[in-house]
């Protein structure tokens, strides 16, 4: 087994785990170091009509002509979007389903039905992931662990969400007439997949991952999810920088999942109070995916949001060479319909994974 050098990181913690002959892969408190550099081999992104009309529309692999995707139900459409994005990612990575050792996927629906239906045709070992909208980084982290630990050679990390399935499960029927508050966010109809594996000439690899803690602000308003998640995102980013010893300006892009316009401003402001000026490299997938005049209020949300933005536009600019170091911080608001009705708070979570060029 060949271990790559850790580059810029002053690694004084690369010590052997007692008596095993294996290096310690934990950095600081919450960060994993992927010593063997699991590589992102290919990505796939499928988005709905509204997302296609947004500013990033041209950078996705498939933009649907109608959100039903030729299926009978919205749920069926979401499953099909997810399996389609996996198929594209596999094709780009030059892999067939037989060569994939495991699929780690998640979505927002009860019992992860979209993921379950979407992977059944591949007949590949499957692990369902749930981290609300942070699912994508959760899947990438665990997928990278599987590859880095040489348990598996090739895995798929994927996540999806669909406006119409999420709306009927969490909120109101689609045709119900109501006015949404300005802080509400729009669940993205989107799915994104990553094939993580190894190749002879590694290009873009997962190098570090920081597993986030649950940060509960006590907020109870389900229309204020950005504000509920922002402290969790800050906690994870801050912890990531501490653990890896990196400066905040090390990354070309720091992308949070779906804080939206409000959450983004809160995160920037809170980081400023800690002496970190995030603004030049920092942006939010929920802000990027829609134009302000698309009637989405505070921006996009849903696990498909960060999944598709990373698998589509961000990956495209990495391939074109305009950016090479990205910290993806998908954020999740871990609420359920029951907890919301009982007046419970909305616990926030965020996981970070750094994907960067390895030379």
């Amino acid at each position, binding site marked *: 087994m060949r271990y790559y050098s850790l580059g810029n990181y002053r690694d004084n913690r690369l010590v052997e785990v007692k008596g095993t002959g294996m290096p310690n892969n934990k950095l600081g408190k919450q960060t994993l170091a992927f010593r063997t550099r699991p590589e992102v081999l290919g990505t796939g992104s499928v988005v709905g009509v509204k997302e296609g009309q947004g500013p990033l529309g041209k950078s996705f692999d498939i933009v649907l002509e109608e959100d039903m995707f030729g299926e009978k139900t919205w749920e069926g459409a979401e499953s099909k979007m997810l399996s389609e994005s996996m198929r594209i990612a596999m094709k780009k990575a030059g892999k067939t389903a037989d060569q994939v050792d495991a699929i780690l996927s998640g979505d927002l629906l009860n019992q992860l039905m979209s993921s379950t239906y979407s992977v059944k045709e591949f007949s590949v070992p499957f692990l369902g992931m749930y981290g609300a909208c942070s699912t994508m980084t959760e899947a990438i982290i665990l997928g990278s662990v599987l590859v880095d630990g040489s348990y598996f050679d090739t895995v798929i990390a994927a996540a999806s969400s669909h406006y119409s399935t999420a709306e009927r499960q969490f909120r109101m*029927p689609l*045709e119900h*007439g109501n006015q949404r508050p300005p802080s509400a966010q729009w669940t993205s109809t989107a799915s994104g997949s990553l094939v993580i594996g190894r190749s002879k000439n590694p290009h873009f690899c997962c190098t570090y991952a920081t597993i986030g803690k649950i940060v509960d602000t*006590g907020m109870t308003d389900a229309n204020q999810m950005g504000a509920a998640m922002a402290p969790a995102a800050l906690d994870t980013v801050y912890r990531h920088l501490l653990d890896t010893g990196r400066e905040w300006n090390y990354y070309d892009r720091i992308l949070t999942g779906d804080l939206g316009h409000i959450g983004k401003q809160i995160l920037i402001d809170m980081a400023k109070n800690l002496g970190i000026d995030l603004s030049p490299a920092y942006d939010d997938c929920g802000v990027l995916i829609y134009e302000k005049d698309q009637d989405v209020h505070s921006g996009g949300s849903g696990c498909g949001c960060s999944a598709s933005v990373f698998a589509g536009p961000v990956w495209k600019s990495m391939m074109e060479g305009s950016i090479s170091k990205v910290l993806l911080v998908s954020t999740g608001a871990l609420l359920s319909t029951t907890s919301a009705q009982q007046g419970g708070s909305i616990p926030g979570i965020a996981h970070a994974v750094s994907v960067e060029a390895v030379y």
Partner: protein
Amino acid sequence: MAKKNSSARNESEKKRQKKAYEKYVKNFTPRPKYFSNSIKAFIVGGSICMAASYIQDGLINRGLGKSEAGSVVTVILICTAQLLTGFGWFDSIAKFAGAGVIVPITGFANSMVAPAMEFKKEGPVLGSGAKLFTLAGPVLVCGITASVIIGIIALLK
């Protein structure tokens, strides 16, 4: 005892932090446009009521009794709202007019047709049938309860 005190203190500290954070978040949250929303609701809601009165007067002029004419107008409003919901236009109208179309009986009609359409795929009985009153049900229960209480008060007076 000391432990209890400290947990109570923790609790109040948590509440204070929550309040402080909510206040902090408010700085970043745009306020709903209450004034323009009210104007829109007033104009649209008012027009609906005006049109309804106009139809009612017309029906009375054609020889219908006042209460029958009222019932017919209600049916017309409900049917129109249901039709608009079916065509998928009601939600756009409601987004603009807000309380102007949600508070009158049109909103009630919409709140029954919307779930009926949404849960059609789950079948006519366990889907539409079961979900038909998910939005309207609470309104009915609270509305009827309130009217009973007010009725009793009126009786006692």
